[in-house]
């Protein structure tokens, strides 16, 4: 059904003004008008609860975006919004502070690089594990493994950091106690930056692999068994089956997870980088700091809210660009998989 002319009908919530937009791309074919049907009303109502939620909890607070552009000062006796609107507009000054700060390029490098590694490993490892676990004979054992591997997901990073500290504490931690007992020198873990990329990557995989594996496994178990039977008849071994049947079948969900994670590439998991490192001691600073730990530290030393707002705004815009880019690239390769 070629719709070459579309009329959008937006009703303003508070009033009755209809805004009509029509788009004409110059096709000479017969133009089909899309009318508002009863079905559309019903669907609109179905989506209404979510719409109202978004209006109240996502869009209403969006005025917060302008905090980044202002020098916020309280006007006594007035509401926050009044004070905010009346505060001095400073344009991009807060952004300048953020981008010209000592740390910007280091933070950028850390945040993005760690995320790239996380994204790649976060697909390779769980997918491989999911395929492997789907092939095990005993379904019971498979369920047991899944349950156990899901455990790390439940633990908050605060709790995990206690556990990591119990291992890595230079004086009393388990690892150093073992080292001493086998005759090696104890390592000052929290003062040695070179180990931490590995430690952090390991902890990230540890926490998320079980969870991601279950998600991909759900997709795998949904694959039609007859496909495999046909492959066997054609003489394919298990390995070939995995590559030519399993992987393509879970492609949509893998791509969706990929795009969504790319959309968060300028964000980092605060708990991982802050709690597990015991609040980023100086020796580890250039190795493990990310935008989010920097913003949090800034908040702690009472930097004004507009500065942290600028940093968050920057993250949001950067992520917006990357996710649209990623989606565009994917849609060019395989238009079904793009999520927008």
């Amino acid at each position, binding site marked *: 059904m070629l719709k070459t002319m579309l009329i959008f009908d*937006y009703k303003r919530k508070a009033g009755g003004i209809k805004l009509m937009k029509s788009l004409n791309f110059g096709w000479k074919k017969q133009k089909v008008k899309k009318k508002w049907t009863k079905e559309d009303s019903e669907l609109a109502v179905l989506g209404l609860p979510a719409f109202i939620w978004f209006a109240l909890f996502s869009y209403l607070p969006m005025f917060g975006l302008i905090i980044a552009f202002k020098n916020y000062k309280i006007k006594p006796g007035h*509401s926050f919004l009044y004070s905010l609107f009346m505060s001095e507009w400073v344009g991009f000054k807060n952004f300048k502070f953020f981008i010209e700060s000592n740390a910007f390029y280091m933070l950028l490098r850390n945040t993005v690089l760690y995320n790239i590694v996380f994204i790649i490993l976060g697909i390779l490892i769980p997918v491989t594990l999911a395929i492997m676990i789907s092939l095990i004979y005993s379904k019971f054992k498979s369920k047991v493994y899944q349950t156990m591997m899901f455990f790390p997901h439940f633990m908050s990073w605060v709790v995990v950091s206690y556990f990591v500290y119990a291992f890595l504490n*230079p004086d009393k931690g388990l690892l150093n106690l073992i080292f001493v007992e086998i005759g090696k020198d104890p390592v000052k873990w929290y003062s040695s930056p070179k180990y931490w990329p590995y430690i952090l990557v390991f902890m990230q995989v540890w926490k998320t692999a079980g969870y991601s594996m279950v998600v991909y496994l759900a997709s795998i178990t949904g694959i039609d068994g007859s496909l495999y039977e046909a492959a066997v008849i054609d003489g394919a071994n298990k390995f070939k089956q995995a590559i030519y049947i399993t992987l393509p079948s879970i492609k949509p969900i893998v791509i969706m997870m990929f795009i969504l994670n790319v959309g968060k590439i300028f964000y980092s998991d605060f708990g991982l980088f802050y709690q597990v490192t*015991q609040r980023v*001691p*100086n020796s580890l600073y250039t190795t493990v700091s990310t935008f989010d730990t920097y913003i949090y530290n800034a908040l702690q030393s009472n*930097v004004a*809210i507009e500065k942290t707002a600028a940093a968050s705004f920057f993250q949001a815009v950067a992520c917006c660009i990357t996710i649209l880019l990623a989606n565009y690239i994917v849609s060019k390769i395989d238009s079904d998989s793009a999520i927008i």
Partner: protein
Amino acid sequence: MKKKIKFIGALAIVLAIMLSLAACKSGDAEAEQNNVSSNEVKEEKEENQESNDIVTIKWVQVGSGMPANYDAWKANIDQYLEEKIGVHLDMEIVSWGNWDNRRSVMINTNEDYDIMFTNSGTYTSDVNLGAFLNISDLVQNKTPELYKFIPEDYWEASKVNGEIYAVPTYKDSSMTNYFIYDKELVESYDIDYTLLKELSDLTEPLTRIAQGENTSPFVLNTIGLDAVLSRYDQMSAGLPALGVRYDDESRTVVPVFEQEDIIRQLDILHEWYNAGIINSDAATLAELPTYRMAFVAQGWSKAAETTWGPQMGVDAVAEQWGETIVSNDTVRGSLSCISSSSENPEKALQLLELVNTDSYVRDALYYGLEGENFIYTDDNKVEKLNSDWTMAGYTQGTFFNVSQLVEDEFNQWDEVKELNANAKPSVLLGFTFDYSQVEDQLANCVEIFNRYKSEILTGTVDSQTQVPLMMEEMRAAGFDDLVQEAQSQVNHHFK
């Protein structure tokens, strides 16, 4: 293309709807609040004269959470307050763990409150934000009792830009550092702790203990031994690397870590670290163990008997280290600030006055509900019935009118008063550094300092190499601008 237009259209319309809704709401709220004029004194006079209405004062403090018997307690104290000053209380006690976040949003969004607990960490930035009321005139004219009760120096220390924005809590507001030891331990090693007056004096005894006990006697955590810096007034800028020596009459602003006396102290710390006197995980240790063989803390000498010892579960002894100093920072450890949007600032001040002068009110806040949390004995002392009370006494008001506990053999507050009285005021008392012109440099330097501080102040690294590195980074970030700006302000303020 289609999608783009859809996007822009959707975004524009949704945003328009939401912003107009928001503007309407804020307009309403603003209209309401405009009825309360921002010229408080005039309003207050009118209110006082025209009605006997009871006003409710909202007070936000940090503590262990809301007390379980809050309602009963409130009903009880409200009766008393009603009679005295026509006020009812509405307390919001935020737990320790939530305090930073909650306080920050409440202040920044200008939520309704009358009195807010504040301390030096956030005081000046909140004043600069416009959150607090200037009470310089109000406190002198309307609550002269309160004004007289707290010493002049302390009001001076609470000033920002020459105006008073807070009522300081008159307690151990001067700072005296002590060396504290496990009594039995030092006796077993024949150490006469009363002779140990300086950091260097401790090296030999602590080395002996380290060898004898085969453990680190002087345990530090990530904060390190920041007491070495206490002789320098940091002008409440939040950058310990910048300061004026408290007794420097010439009031020269200097880079603290390059000063002779500081360098010597840091060298000692590093020596201790290498000798195993300081624990090797100091720079990453989040919290101190309950028991420590030797440590430094602020307080008063009798605290060894009343607090430090009991906390550790052993007998403790203390010896003073250095002089007692009073400076802006020491006084600002606990402040009560009145919101600039408060509708009843005068009543709020009267409440604070009552808290600081009337023992009944003070005890109610400090100990809880009479009959449930404590009772008065015949000689007007207090016997605690349980330790359920969650409010934190140090956030509320002076300690000097808190009724004594039965088990106290002596009044430790007497010693505190004496220490306060004999404290040496810092030469910068009353001066607050206005860093609005150099805030970028300051923020960058603070960030640099925060990275280095744990390792330098715990002796983990050799300060001879690390300090120059840190100063180099800071200078590149504009440290010298800070020195210049601060010095010119100091000169201007004290001319």
